[in-house]
């Protein structure tokens, strides 16, 4: 009985040693391959991270050309002119403008109000100027509007 017990104990130890070598060649070979590919892998991962960063930045990339194209498309070409522009990308603007036609000012306001990208719009500080030399009348006014800021990133 004791011999059997000792035999089983020794057998267990032997099995442990034998099995510890199981797949050892394959594991070593795989580790070697991994080590050989490590530099290329690090380079690829670095690129992947940079690509993720670039995507994050590109998703919020600002296009002012979108804004000016929008303004051109929604401004009466022959009647309304903007004197200057100063603003950021967050949507609120006050544009000093001039028009040669009172009705055009009103119509321009309606064009903006009806546009889905304009959240709100109004006109104030109207000033009618009569040029005595030319005999022509023009209207100075401020165009206030809130634009959906997504127009810069779409």
């Amino acid at each position: 009985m004791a011999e059997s017990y000792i035999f089983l104990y020794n057998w267990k130890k032997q099995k442990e040693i034998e099995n510890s070598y199981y797949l050892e060649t394959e594991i070593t070979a795989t580790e070697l391959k991994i080590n050989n590919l490590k530099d290329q892998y690090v380079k690829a991962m670095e690129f992947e991270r940079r690509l993720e960063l670039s995507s994050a930045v590109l998703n919020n990339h600002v296009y002012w050309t979108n804004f000016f194209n929008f303004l051109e498309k929604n401004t009466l070409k022959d009647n309304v002119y903007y004197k200057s522009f100063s603003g950021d990308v967050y949507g609120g603007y006050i544009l000093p403008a001039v028009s040669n036609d009172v009705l055009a000012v009103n119509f321009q306001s309606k064009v903006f109000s009806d546009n889905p990208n304009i959240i709100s719009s109004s006109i104030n500080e109207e000033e009618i100027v009569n040029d005595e030399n030319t005999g022509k009348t023009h209207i100075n006014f401020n165009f206030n509007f809130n634009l959906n800021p997504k127009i810069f990133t779409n």
Partner: protein
Amino acid sequence: MPDIKNKKGRDVEFDEEILKARKRRNNINRFLMSYFKYFLVAIIFIILVLSFKFLLIPQYGEVMFTSNNVLQEKKTEFILQYQKLKDYENTINQFNAINSNDIYRVEKMIPNSYSRDDLFAEITYFLMTNNYKVENVEVLSLDQTSTTTNPDFNLDRRSDLKNQKATTSTSSDLYKKQLSFLPDNIGAWKIRVSVSGVDYFSLKKMLNILESNLKIIDIYYLDFQPADRIVSVDFLTYYKK
């Protein structure tokens, strides 16, 4: 006399009891002599069964468990290593399939950290080669926004300082909202550029050039005065920290 009779009677009873006890012992001894080998066999059998059940079987189970456990650990280790290798190979293959020009473009979009001097020279040269009359270029690192700019690098030192004082109250914090969308490991430079001799069409061209530049440029503030033909833009450009 009766006492002597009684004593004799008691002795006889005592002798009979001794005889009975001896007879009983003899019977037991005879029984044991006859069946001893069977008892011995039974006891040995019981000892064997108990040893087998409580020593050998558990030990055998332990041998099997240990053996399988080691095998299983080795298999798991091999599978993990193999999966890691496949993951490496897939990533590398995907990377190798990308056109080298595209890699260059992506690296240019968000370059590694570079110096303020490099950026100043790059932006100024970029605008000048596109025929813009650059009045002022100011570059600020957002990691040290509160520190002053190095005026030596401005084209017009006095005008830069004047502009800085005039505009910090209006647009100095606007970039923060722009940055809030970005991951933490992206650094940014804040740049202010003033260009003269600009009409509406050249402004649109300039915006187009800046927006489509390989290095990403996000203009967050723009001031255009057609009467003076001057445009000022505040923008961010990024680098990988």
